């Protein structure tokens, strides 16, 4: 490992964060998407609080999955088009870890922001207040896993024409465990029981993703650049 690796990774993270912050409007888009879809449910399902409350956990997570899918697919697209991916492969540093800095920036801008504003959305869906704390924690862990899985798909499909459809086919099945554990945690808390086992499962997924996803991303990026 080259001596200044830590400096390089933190530089790359700063580069992504700074680039993202230059256009704050783009950061709001996923949240607005979320807000729009959430408002559709009371209209479509009827405004009865009991019904919404019973479905709220499931609805919330399905929308989180979809909103993540729409943005993570383009994760490496800009870097592919402007040649950054070529340069980061040329660098003496690990492609996998550099890709991880990109996912970290993506997660901070999407999952973390969503987790922060989620209590508002939870109230809109009549989610029991006892479940809101669990929802925030579950979202922090779950969106990290979603971003990591989405990034694998993005690395594999970057540079492909109509990679979007292929991406959904690759990624959505892998999102399923997050959906199940996430809904499990929130429902458990909503019924006043201890959700920690579900949260632990999400944490385990996140830990596994952090270790394995960068390897897959690194290989995917190298193949994409070689095309």
């Amino acid at each position, binding site marked *: 490992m*080259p001596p*200044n690796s830590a400096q*390089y990774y933190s*530089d*790359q993270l*700063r*580069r992504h964060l*700074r*680039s993202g912050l*230059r*256009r704050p409007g783009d950061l709001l888009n996923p949240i607005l998407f979320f807000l729009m879809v959430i408002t559709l449910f009371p209209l479509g399902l009827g405004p009865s609080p009991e019904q919404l409350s019973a479905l709220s956990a499931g609805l919330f997570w399905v929308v989180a999955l979809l909103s993540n899918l729409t943005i993570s697919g383009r994760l490496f697209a*800009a*870097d592919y*088009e*402007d*040649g*950054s*991916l*070529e*340069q*980061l*492969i*040329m*660098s*003496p*540093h690990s492609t996998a870890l*550099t890709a991880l800095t990109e996912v970290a920036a993506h997660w901070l801008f999407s999952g973390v922001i969503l987790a922060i504003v989620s209590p508002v959305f939870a109230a809109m869906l009549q989610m029991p207040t006892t479940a809101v704390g669990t929802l925030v924690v579950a979202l922090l862990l779950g969106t990290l896993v979603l971003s990591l899985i989405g990034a694998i798909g993005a690395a594999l499909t970057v540079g492909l024409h109509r990679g979007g459809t292929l991406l959904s086919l690759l990624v959505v099945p892998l999102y399923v465990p997050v959906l199940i554990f996430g809904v499990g945690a929130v429902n458990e808390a909503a019924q006043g029981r201890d959700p920690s086992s579900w949260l632990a499962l999400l944490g385990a997924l996140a830990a596994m993703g952090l270790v394995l996803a960068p390897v897959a991303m690194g290989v995917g990026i*190298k*193949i994409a*650049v*070689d*095309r």
Partner: protein
Amino acid sequence: MTDVNLERGYRRVLSGVNFTVAAGELWQLAGANGVGKTSLIRALAGLVKIGLEGEIVCNVSLLYQGHALALKPLLTAEENLQFHPSGGVSREREAINHALETVGLAGYETQPVNQLSAGQQRRVGLARLWLDDARLWLLDEPFTAIDVVGAALLESRITEHVADGGSVIFTSHQDSRFGEALQTLDLARYAP
């Protein structure tokens, strides 16, 4: 490189390429469009592995500059050089500003790159050549989109690097600019 064969999209573009670049040498890869200049230079950079046969041995540090410049449109010229993904760029602010001044972009340091013209963006990319300490430069069409003054500047930088014991391989359609120092590898010879 010895006995290098290169395929792109199941079509062989180059076969039996043999050449060696020593320190202090300047090479131009020449040939018509589609002859495989970019493919070969990307193979030299280690970016192409699929469809590559033969052996490429490189024992010096590399700098590769392709058609795409790896600049982030929303970051300034200075930030782009500071956080360049190649990782090889020296990060002293003074050095970066000096390099930008050399390529004629004094006063544009804090301008987002997407507000610069294509030629100016090219110059931001080329500023790397004043910052990096790689010994072998692989430059793909370095003279594209820059004006006469920029081209002269780039020529003098390349000449300086070569005189300093570095090596440069570049692709260009244009005729040689460097006089006797330049060696040309005509890729048409290696068409299958």
